[in-house]
């Protein structure tokens, strides 16, 4: 059964430097609070894994947390570039950033393979794409029945998955509803999992037809972190702060302004336990 910890303790105990960490949440339920705690604890050398790096990884990369990024789409959704990610790749600021780049389908398959205890996944992918030229971890196999060449990618097996969910019950079972993304796969693919939640309840109840339940025995740590997905959204709790996503473009464009924002909004003492700057 998972432990119920404060966010700071969860991160200090389960995110050693140089480990691989997947903070997942597909647009919805992005675990900002946990990412901010990683920034506050000045962890470095991490391999950050995430299909859609989004503002959270822009912040973490800009703060020098990452040695390597594995991703498939690195933009500010509906706004434009992730300027800190670009600065790291284009100008090695604040340090060089190794990248392993995939398509969404490849990463989704990689997580599923990790969850299923497989060393790799096969799919029909990357047809004609130059990504196969720049990523040696895209290989192929031959179907023993049809002779077709199929694409193979390695299973994704992070040391740690961190996700944000709506609810946990007191035993540590977790409910995710709304857009469920790849969080179940990320948790089951990882060696360990931390789940931050909006609420801890007596009974998870039932939710929509697509809701996902993760049993307590698949999770190491539950953290009660209301607002922990802000400025992204938590279906049924709060909406996405679209204005902040737009503002971020200007903040992140400039190294000094970015650093000041991190100092004031994430690192300063008044940035509370939830760590969500605008919550």
């Amino acid at each position, binding site marked *: 059964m998972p432990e119920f910890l404060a966010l700071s303790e969860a991160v200090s105990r389960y995110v050693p430097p140089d480990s691989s960490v997947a903070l997942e949440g*597909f647009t919805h339920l992005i675990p900002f609070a946990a990412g901010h705690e990683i920034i506050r604890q000045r962890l470095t050398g991490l391999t950050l894994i995430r299909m859609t790096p989004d503002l959270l990884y822009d912040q973490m990369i800009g703060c020098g947390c990452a040695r390597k990024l594995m991703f498939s789409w690195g933009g500010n959704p*509906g706004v434009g570039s992730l300027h800190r990610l670009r600065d790291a790749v284009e100008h090695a600021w604040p340090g060089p950033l190794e990248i392993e780049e995939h398509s969404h389908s490849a990463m989704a398959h990689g997580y599923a393979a990790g969850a299923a205890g497989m060393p790799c996944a096969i799919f029909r992918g990357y*047809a004609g794409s130059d990504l196969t030229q720049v990523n040696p971890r895209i290989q192929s196999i031959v179907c023993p029945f049809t002779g077709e060449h199929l694409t193979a990618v390695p299973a994704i097996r992070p040391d740690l998955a961190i996700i944000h969910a709506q609810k946990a019950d007191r035993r540590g079972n977790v409910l995710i509803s709304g857009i469920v993304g790849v969080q179940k796969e990320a948790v089951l693919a990882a060696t360990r999992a931390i789940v931050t939640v909006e609420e801890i309840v007596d009974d998870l109840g039932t939710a929509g037809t697509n809701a996902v339940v993760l049993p307590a025995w698949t999770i190491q740590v539950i953290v009660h972190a209301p607002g922990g997905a802000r400025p992204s959204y938590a279906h049924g709790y709060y909406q996405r702060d679209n204005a902040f996503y737009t503002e971020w473009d200007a903040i992140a464009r400039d190294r000094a302004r970015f650093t000041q924002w991190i100092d004031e909004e994430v690192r300063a003492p008044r940035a509370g336990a939830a760590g969500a700057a605008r919550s």
Partner: protein
Amino acid sequence: MTYTPTEMMTVAAARALRSEDICFVGIGLPSAACNLARLTHAPGLTLVYESGTIETKPHVLPLSIGDGELCETALTTVPVVEMFQYWLQGGRITVGFLGGAQVDRYGNLNSTVVGPYDRPKVRLPGSGGATEIAAHCGRVFIVMPHDARAFVSKLDFLTSIGHGPTGREREALGLRTEGPTLIVTDLCTMRPDPETHEFEVATLHPGVTQARVSENTGWPVRFMKDLEGTPPPTSGELAALRDLLERTDRAHRRKQDS
């Protein structure tokens, strides 16, 4: 009724959709075009977003492919893995919309880098779903503003295949889908030559000259023999589009104020 080039582009893209299409929608212009089609001539159009929402009917345009309203108004929502496995790769999607920073004459797209991959001048967002959308949707529509830096003679990086570097690679790659059949820009619509698969201008938007299209295209662009004018947006189309955008704007402002 006056209208902007972007409105013309959106309307022209919307018209290409049929009520029976199952459409994989990206964010931005494709989302406006798809929802406009649903609100006008194609009420049965099925919208699928890569976040897993199937048959969604948003009242306002989402700001990301994973907005809550997409899920609330969907027939069902599936995990992202399933979306790529059973729905996209499974061949259930009839049309996909794509864009990119660069497109070439064969409809191949670059959304990865400008400059060399290892020392990029501009690092772009990357593939996302595009590489497999390009391969597995029945056909692909490309929507991009017309500009010589975007409509290039040679891509810096081929992220998502159109008809391939020489226009003839799809079959050899084992792809059984049609690939890009339409490019819609703010100047014109383009269709591939049935033989060479080189995109040629099929219709010019009202007031646009051939010279202007040529100036804004990085290769010596061809015009179809039976080149026509794109019918201007009807008042019905414009009203529906503006209404949708206003509704979207109001909704998103309200969310931010709350």
